[in-house]
């Protein structure tokens, strides 16, 4: 064990005679033998890694610096350090429950995610088949195009009162806004995907005389899948934007409500933490879906 640590230290110093010293280590493990050629390309590798790491680190440092200066000048804005301390205590117990309006941040994030999940799920359930139909039949495209064009630019929050009216409850109304904002990208991207299925593939289907079921499962669905996943990614992105605003209006448990509640409690550092939490969750959702999309891109687009 000690021989290993000993042989590692001269390697770090970069001394040329290091190749002679760890002779004992060579006897133990054969893969240590090609040490010389391995160390040579290490330096360009390190440089490439530094090139990748340094700019983001500098960016974060710059942001923290500006934040610290603003916190010093403006009263009420917590400094990065204060925020960090608050975050440590906050995340020490993210899942506590002291009544309906005082729950840990973990519960708040989870209930927001649940609303997004349900609203988005219904949107997918309706939007994807609708997209297939709209893509396949030009009559339907022409029929629904004016409606979608009219409704799509409307902020989903404008639909919140309708949701409140129909469901008579805050919680499903928030989910309803998620449904509304998720459904448009889903319909439009799926329809576009169906319209863009290469004619070559459809010719193959025609020459092979495939059954309608085979055409859907073997040709249409896989061809449309990348477009569908783009629609899903856009939907989830907007849904995560909208849920914060919707929950601020409806109340209950949720990250948006939590932000508003902490504003009422004047715990500004918690608001800053919430901003980071919302950002990180959004980033994770996006990355997960990008990964999924990569899996189904078939290496040709």
């Amino acid at each position, binding site marked *: 064990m000690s021989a290993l640590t000993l042989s590692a230290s001269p390697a770090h110093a970069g001394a040329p005679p290091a190749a002679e010293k760890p002779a004992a280590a060579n006897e133990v493990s054969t893969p240590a033998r090609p040490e010389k050629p391995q160390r040579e390309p290490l330096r360009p590798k390190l440089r490439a890694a530094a090139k990748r790491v340094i700019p983001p680190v500098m960016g974060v440092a710059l942001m923290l610096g500006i934040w610290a200066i603003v916190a010093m000048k403006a009263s009420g804005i917590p400094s990065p350090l204060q925020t960090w301390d608050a975050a440590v205590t906050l995340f020490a117990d993210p899942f506590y429950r002291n009544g309906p309006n005082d729950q840990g941040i973990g519960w708040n994030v989870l209930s927001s995610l649940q609303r997004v999940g349900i609203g988005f799920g219904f949107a997918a359930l309706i939007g994807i088949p609708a997209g297939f139909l709209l893509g396949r039949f030009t009559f339907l495209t022409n029929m629904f195009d004016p409606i979608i064009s009219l409704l799509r630019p409307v902020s989903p929050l404008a639909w919140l009162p309708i949701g409140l009216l129909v469901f008579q409850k805050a919680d499903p109304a928030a989910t309803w806004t998620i449904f509304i904002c998720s459904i448009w990208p889903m319909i439009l991207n799926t329809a576009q995907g169906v319209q863009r299925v290469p004619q*070559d*593939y459809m*010719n*193959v289907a*025609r*020459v*092979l*005389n*495939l059954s309608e079921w*085979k055409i859907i499962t*073997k*040709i249409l669905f*896989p*061809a449309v899948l990348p477009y569908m996943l783009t629609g899903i990614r856009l939907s989830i992105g907007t849904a995560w934007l909208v849920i914060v605003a919707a929950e601020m209006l409806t109340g209950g448990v949720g990250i948006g409500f939590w932000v508003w509640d902490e504003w009422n409690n004047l715990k500004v550092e918690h608001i800053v933490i919430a901003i980071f939490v919302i950002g990180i969750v959004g980033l994770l959702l996006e990355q997960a879906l990008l990964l999924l999309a990569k899996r*189904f891109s*078939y*290496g*040709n687009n």
Partner: protein
Amino acid sequence: MSKPMVIVENVGMAFDTKSGRFTALRDIDLQIAEGEFVSLIGHSGCGKSTLLNLIAGLTLPTSGNVICAGREVAGPGPERAVVFQNHSLLPWLTCFENVYLGVERVFGSRERNGKLKLRTEAALEMVHMDHAMHKYPHEISGGMKQRVGIARAFAMEPKVLLMDEPFGALDALTRASLQDELIGVMGKTGATVVMVTHDVDEAVLLSDRVVMMTNGPAATIGEILDVKLAKPRNRLELAHDAQFVDCRAAILEFLYQKQMKKAA
């Protein structure tokens, strides 16, 4: 000549475009015997691919009839398999699955899965692609993709094999090796083939007859050349063969003197 497998009777094809009716083909009469290899050659835009699509049933003629094996062509079908120029393999299926899709469609109702698998494997073996059976199309080269495309068509045991510039997108060396491959497969199966090409050597090397088409619009058959070279053919021996050279010259003369393009 044995009984004709394909009969093209007085066929014309017109498309409705924005600037009015466009006549692509007119007065096409052609009979193709069973086991015959026919090439369609002509300048680009002469409608040779349109004629192939008419035989495939992918488009229907505006006048006249196409008859295949005694039945009028009313749409595409696996008994007239097509090898597309750009291979048209489905990128989400492996080579095996791409071929299997056709095999299952044609023989699935009569044969067990094991037999279907054997057929698929045999077809891929025939074009020497059995080593890459379980690779996806994006993992293999353009020439290999086209081999799989040919395997898919042959595996369906079509009455007629239709090839739309099958080697057009390949480099010269790959094209030559695939042509040799095709000669080998033809020798084994004795299939009836119609091939669209713009390569004079390819047409002479592979065909029993070369159908030369006049320039469009309103293109039709200009001349038909019989290639009476013995089979199987060998490209190295043919290079200095007087008959081969004569056939080549006849086609070149047709294309570059009688049907010279006004503006290339």
